[in-house]
């Protein structure tokens, strides 16, 4: 079953010098149960892809289509995409002082439940679930009372993203360089979280610079993105080859 279908996607980012084309006809299909790793040199459009899929402001879609199941995502607001099952783990999670993590997570889970016509979880059960999840990712449950990502280390922020992934359980997870800035222990915790999330009905798009993460989260496909296009696809051995040779032999 096709989960995500990106076809002939053209997109540009707004800059001071006018729109700058980034994606130039990108195609990508993710089926349920699959993990796709997207690699590529700096500036190739990896993060732009994640941002366009999640609806971040500041980008313009110039052509093409993005389907999540039977829904065309491109005309939807970010919150509507999230309600349909898109989740972006941020490369740079945002700090929001004054809004506690717990409040934020409850607002999120309630919004998703409302949109799907499900019952909102009872507060006590919800708080217990969140505390257990936090513990399983080596996050001190005391952080739940603090502002969202406020004063977190880089590693804690990334683990918080993975905690949200596990809590919200989306159809499609976009992980934007979730491994950047992590030491090896944190990397294992994050990878373990992603592996717990994986199942036969959801999908993962993993954007990364380094092969190392793929030792822990084994992808079904590896794609090389260069200059706005996927120029090579393969299995996990492609990542090893890139690690050994760099990108130059492809581009």
């Amino acid at each position, binding site marked *: 079953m096709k989960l995500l279908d990106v076809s002939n996607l053209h997109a540009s980012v707004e800059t001071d010098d006018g729109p700058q084309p980034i994606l130039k006809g990108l195609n990508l299909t993710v089926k349920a149960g699959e993990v796709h790793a997207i690699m590529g040199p700096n500036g190739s459009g990896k993060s732009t892809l994640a941002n366009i899929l999640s*609806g971040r402001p500041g980008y313009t879609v110039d052509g093409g289509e993005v389907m999540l199941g039977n829904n065309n995502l491109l005309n939807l607001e970010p*919150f509507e995409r999230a309600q349909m099952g898109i989740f972006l783990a941020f490369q740079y999670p*945002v700090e929001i002082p*004054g809004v506690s993590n717990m409040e934020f997570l409850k607002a*999120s889970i309630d*919004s998703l439940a409302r949109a799907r016509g499900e019952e909102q979880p009872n507060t006590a059960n919800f708080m217990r679930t969140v505390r257990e999840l936090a513990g399983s990712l080596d996050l001190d449950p005391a952080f739940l009372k603090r502002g*969202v990502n406020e004063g977190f280390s880089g590693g804690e922020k990334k683990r918080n993203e993975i905690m949200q992934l596990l809590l919200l359980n989306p159809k499609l997870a976009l992980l934007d360089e979730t491994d950047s800035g992590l030491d090896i222990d944190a990397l294992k915790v994050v990878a373990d979280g992603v592996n717990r999330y994986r199942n036969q009905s959801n999908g993962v798009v993993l954007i990364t610079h380094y092969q190392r993460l793929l030792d822990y989260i084994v992808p079904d496909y590896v794609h090389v993105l260069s200059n706005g296009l996927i120029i090579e696809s393969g299995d996990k051995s492609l990542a090893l080859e890139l690690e050994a040779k760099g990108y130059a032999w492809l581009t």
Partner: protein
Amino acid sequence: MADLALPKTLLVPAGLAEGLTESGGTINDIVQDALNSPIHRERWKYTKADGFLTQLVALSKAPTIYGEQQTGVRWLRETISNPIPGLDLQQGPEAFARLCFSGEAMRLEITGSVTDPVTLIHRSNTLPVIVNLSASASLTLIEMIEGDEGQQTVWIDIGPNAKLNHSRNALNAASSSWQYASVRLQSSARYHLNNHVLGCGVRRQDLHVIMDGQGADAKLVSAGMVDNKAALDQQITLEHRQPRGHSEQTIHNIVANGGKCSFNGRIHIHDGASGTEAQLSNKNLGLGDNATINTKPELEIYNDDVSCSHGATVGTLSQEALFYLTSRGIDKAEAEALLSQGFLQQCIDGPLAETALKAMIGIRELGASL
């Protein structure tokens, strides 16, 4: 601009005038000059003073008090006959005039560690209040401002090593409302203010803090919401007169839909106040159409050995934060509400926090239980 004038001639209580007439002239002339001095005019640049001056002679009654029946607390009505510590005619000529017109005041004397809070409820105009904490005393003082038109003037003197936690809610819908407070800290005294305020027809809050002893510590935290064409004008002067004082001010205001908010925060570090640490941060969030925000942090330093920071920002909701929240399925209106609430919540604390939250943003179910 026409000269500001008092509504009638002052009769100054004996004792109060001590030291004030050294420069010559009658008290009435001195007050008149102070009202019209450039520095004072500047403090009233964004709010019309006339209406507040006319009201200085309005009849006042004692505020309602709770918690005065405790050991270490005395509450009495008295004729003003002694000098008031911290009284500064130049800083607050209209507050001084109000004291004279009133001729009497309520005195709250704290002589020990008082366990339960003392609460003052001000309905409309209340008599001037003088608060004394003796050495090593401690108190939680709660003030609630109620009623339509009203003026409150308070002088607080905190003795050596004494500690005052002061919480004030000014959340009433009044056509005009003025809170003046003067706080003097002696050596190693501590003062902590949590102020929560809604704009109203015209709301003015003046605060004069004098660090008058070594090692005094003051923390001022204020959250304000100025919506629907309401107005708020906050003027804070904080003077470090003695060495090794520490002061920290955090003022967050949301100004929305035609609201008008002015803030002036002046830190004055006197010669000799070495080792002073002073911080001031005023952040303003403009929402909706036609919000007006004036903010001016001021530093006046006559000493090299100090650490000082001041900053003021005026902005709107962070687009990054909005995207983060909406990317988790929270719709835009709710995300905006969460962010606004979070902005104010950073400055809402103390015993009146819950009431303030309800009045200012409508508390969230989970927020209350955390």
